[in-house]
């Protein structure tokens, strides 16, 4: 492509944007609203997903030892557990620690458990975390088979239900984001089609004079890119300000862990900007071809 053509295309695109103020405004608002909604959906999904990851990673297995297991046996059980594929972390909790934990959870000052019970009834135990929380039921079964392991608990039933819920939350949010992106493409395509429709006489004339399709298309592509990225920029500013103030408020109010990592947010904002440009180009592509068929 020749340089003077590129300059001509950009000039034409800018002229057209200025001339059709109302349509320019309409397209930019459509694009920014679509991308804002898309961005909100992605942010919610990101946060929900982080929350679910945290919930899932809290799932652990507790393996209780037989009461009369010796110190060396306990140590060898630890090795056996570590050898099971998928085990991330094994932590020993002695019967004394377990009692202290229980004491703490019942309230320190009300009772003195040690005094009341005289003899510690609690067994030694291991707390086990897995690499993938979804492997918990399977690994729990294998630990149960080891010698000197009396019982294994991992919140059976609740864990399975939690995983079922998180699976569906993820699927539905991906589906919703896809749907929103699809809607955004068509909304933007329609507004760009209106802009092209307003200039159909000019396009017809250009075709009859002998302009090539590419020559006619390029200014519209540039227009689409400008409209899309401008709309995206507005929505990113709104989203960033809104989310920042949400972080500040939520911090003092809730336990809900919001994503605050600037890297993750920056990636999101840049992706939204690229999405905006992409939507602009795609919208133009969908709309322009039938006007070129002269």
């Amino acid at each position, binding site marked *: 492509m020749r340089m*003077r053509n590129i300059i001509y295309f950009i000039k034409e695109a800018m002229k057209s944007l200025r*001339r059709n103020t109302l349509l320019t405004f309409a397209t930019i608002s459509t694009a920014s609203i679509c991308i804002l909604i898309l961005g909100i959906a992605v942010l919610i999904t990101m946060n929900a997903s982080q929350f679910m990851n945290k919930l899932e990673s809290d799932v652990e297995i507790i393996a209780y030892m037989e009461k009369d297991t010796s110190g060396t046996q306990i140590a060898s059980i630890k090795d056996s557990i570590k050898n099971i594929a998928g085990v991330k972390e094994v932590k020993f909790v002695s019967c004394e620690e377990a009692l202290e934990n229980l004491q703490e959870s019942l309230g320190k000052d009300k009772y003195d458990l040690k005094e009341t019970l005289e003899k510690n009834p609690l067994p030694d135990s291991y707390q086990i975390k897995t690499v993938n929380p979804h492997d918990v039921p399977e690994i729990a079964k294998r630990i149960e088979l080891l010698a000197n392991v009396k019982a294994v608990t991992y919140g059976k039933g609740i864990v399975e239900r939690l995983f079922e819920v998180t699976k569906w939350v993820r699927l539905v949010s991906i589906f919703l984001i896809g749907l929103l992106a699809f809607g955004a493409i068509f909304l933007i395509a329609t507004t760009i089609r209106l802009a092209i429709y307003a200039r159909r006489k*000019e396009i017809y*004339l*250009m075709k*009859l*004079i*002998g302009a*090539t399709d590419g020559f006619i298309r390029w200014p519209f592509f540039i227009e689409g890119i400008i409209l899309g990225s401008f709309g995206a920029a507005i929505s990113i500013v709104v989203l960033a300000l809104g989310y920042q103030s949400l972080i500040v408020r939520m911090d003092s109010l809730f336990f809900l862990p919001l994503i605050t990592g600037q890297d993750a947010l920056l990636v999101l904002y840049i992706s939204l900007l690229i999405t905006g440009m992409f939507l602009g180009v795609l919208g133009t592509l969908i709309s322009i071809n039938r006007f070129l068929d*002269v």
Partner: protein
Amino acid sequence: MLVQFYNVSKIYPNGVKALDDISLKIDRGEFLFLMGPSGAGKSTLIKMLFREEKPTRGQIFIASRSVVRMKRSEIPSLRRSMGIVFQDFKLLESKTVSENVAFAMEVVGARNHEIKNRVPEVINMVGLKGKEDAFPGQLSGGEQQRVGIARAIANQPLILIADEPTGNLDIDTSNEIMDLLYSINRKGTTIIMATHAREIVKAAHKRVIMLEKGRIITDDSSGDYAL
């Protein structure tokens, strides 16, 4: 031969037969009137010249190139060898006279200095000197058509195609436009003009092709056809 039609027929998808077995030849430098009642096929014939329509049957050659077999990517170069003048002028309202003429050169990729030289030249040629910066809305119908003609000849076409160029103009203005077209023709440009204006055709003594129901009923090189 500049233009050759061989047994050209056009049947539109809705079943209307617009052209029925048309054969004709047009020489370089000719001035040709296309006449006939509305719906006789004049517009279809004209649209085939710059391939806005393709014939259902038959062959068309322009400057020895087949317009029918032409690829889509070759159409722009065909159209650059032609200038088209419309009944409703088709000027861009948001552009001045100069810009309308320059537009025709810009879209075919002419260089800036070429545009700068050529635009005043053609505006002068069609008698619109001093109106360069006026917008179409500020001009009379005759003046607007002059802009249309200036735009059509800006790229120095081989053929000028005029579809009822005087259809929206009064008699005096029509005659002025015709004088302009004759002078362009005298400089060597072939002109094909569709019209309803019998007085103009009668006075011109140029070749006339009469169409009726998609067929050529007379092809008279002297213009003394029976009205």
